């Protein structure tokens, strides 16, 4: 690679075993501020193990994990958050029945008043939520509506805006577009780009090469717990990425099987 700025987060030959099962081994990737690193892999390729190591849910047992050049071993998600690594999970991002602003500040509530009158500063939290969402280009009708009334894409966007607002430097997104339609996925990717433009480093976990290629600066391919490739954007086309992602030769063979002789169409 060219002389890039110092990466915020760097994995070098990281591995993880659960008992005798080697879930991940020899994975290296770097995340630089203002860039999107995509991690691509099929189901069972080790994507979720990787995300758990980065976000502090599990500890790696091989290789090194560096944040700002300093080797770390994160004991908990809280420790990762304290170092500016925020993870947005696709399924457990929000509490559906709570208003948007309460979700936004959940766990980091603002207060006003003193002693027994110490209370939530609802007005300030509402206003801040509206501002933070607007800054990310999210136009929400009403921050008092239950977040469950938002679409899946909008919920992801609120979670992203939340991470940006609370000072995350690295945003880890777990399959943010997996359960979404084409249009909603586009919306989410737009906010991924907005987060990148705010100067965050983004780790985008996905199994969709089309989505990855739209926003990615770097692509890491995982296959059965190991690295199957690592490319900079300039070095790889969408077709090549798709082909590698789908297993290259395996895809050709599958096409052959499914289509029989009629390969022309």
């Amino acid at each position, binding site marked *: 690679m060219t002389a890039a700025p110092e990466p915020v987060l760097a994995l070098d030959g990281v591995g993880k075993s659960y008992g005798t099962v080697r879930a991940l081994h020899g994975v290296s990737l770097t995340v630089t501020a203002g860039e999107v690193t995509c991690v691509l892999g099929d189901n069972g390729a080790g994507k979720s193990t990787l995300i758990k190591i980065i976000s502090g849910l599990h500890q790696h047992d091989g290789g090194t994990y560096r944040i700002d050049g300093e080797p770390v071993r994160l004991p908990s*998600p*809280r420790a990762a*958050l304290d170092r500016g690594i925020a*993870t947005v*999970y696709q399924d*457990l*991002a*929000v*509490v*559906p*029945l*709570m208003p948007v602003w*309460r979700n936004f*500040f*959940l*766990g*980091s*509530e603002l*207060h006003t008043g003193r002693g027994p009158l*110490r*209370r*939530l500063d*609802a007005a300030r939290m509402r206003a801040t939520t509206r501002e933070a969402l607007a800054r990310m280009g999210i136009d929400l*009708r*009403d921050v*008092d*509506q*239950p977040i*469950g*009334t*938002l*679409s*899946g894409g909008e919920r992801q966007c609120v979670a992203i805006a939340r991470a940006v607002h609370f000072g995350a430097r690295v945003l880890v997104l777990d399959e943010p577009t997996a359960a979404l339609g084409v249009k909603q996925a586009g919306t989410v990717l737009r906010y991924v780009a907005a987060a990148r433009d705010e100067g965050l480093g983004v780790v985008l976990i996905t199994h969709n090469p089309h989505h990855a290629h739209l926003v990615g600066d770097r692509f890491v391919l995982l296959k059965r717990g190991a690295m199957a490739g690592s490319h900079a954007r300039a070095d790889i086309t969408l077709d090549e990425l798709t082909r590698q992602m789908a297993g290259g030769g395996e895809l050709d063979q599958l096409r052959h099987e499914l289509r029989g002789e009629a390969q022309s169409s």
Partner: protein
Amino acid sequence: MTAGTAAPPAPETGRPSGPAPQRRAPARVLLARPELGAVVGAVAVFAFFALVADSFLRPGSLSTVLYAASTIGIMAVPVALLMIGGEFDLSTGVMVTSSALVSSMASYQMTANVWVGVGVSLLVTLAFGLFNGWLLVRTRLPSFIITLGTFLMLTGLNLGATKLISGGVATRSISDMEGFPSASAVFASQLTLGDDVRVRVTVLWWLGLTALATWVLLRTRAGNWIFAVGGNGAAARAVGVPVARTKIGLYLGVALCAWVSGQHLLFTYGVVQSGEGVGNELIYIAAAVIGGCLLTGGYGSAVGSAVGALIFGMTEKGIVYAQWDHDWFKFFLGAMLLLATLLNAWIRRRAEATR
């Protein structure tokens, strides 16, 4: 007779139910309140008994109604908070009795000032709550099972320990003991306003607890956490909410109110029947559900459960004033509960309507 309670969904018809309202209209805000159904139901029940029972509107009758509502409401409010936090407590009914028994027997056996018994009872009752909460977060068993266990254990313990210590099914009277008048004033007195209006002190406890619980729920961080752990525990944990601590705190709140309720029971009569309280836990839960709490957690209000308790009080006493057979009380409440739950389900569908 329950036709009035079917009314709540009616306002819906006038409103556009599009998924993307541009502005939050006041009527819409009102419609989104969890206690709306309970308030409409309470008005309907009140109007109903005002019509069919001549003596219902007399000050004396109303104060009796409020008293009945308050004894349920003191427990329904913390039970509602617990349910918003996503958990059940089936041991509340007998825990009230346990609290009264401990207080009574501690004072009697030590021949001490009754306030000593009151203090011992507080500690023991909080220990019951702590046990429920601690077991829940440690074992991760459903709270239904855990508190069903403590319900049965306390039921047996109340009867067995009372027989062992007092030699009967009831405790010995402590009404002639030192401190009884002052404790009675705090937990079981009656205030007279003007000439004819009498208010039981439990009504003040009930209103005070409702106000406190509402403040906690809507204006403190703890309240935010209660909604969050009930609505989506995993998401709450992921953003740093102490889920275990919040749930244990909720069980302690229930125990604290069981203690207040138990002391009221004791200082009203001076004696406690050890078999009392069985079945009340379901009444508290029903009041909370009528008040808008979802069984699945994450939604509800303290005011709603207080209104739910008021519906219970009005129904229980209204049937007496209408000179009907008291047996119809439970039937009436069952019907109310079903209607309220249907309404809640409808509210939640609105709140969770996604795409």
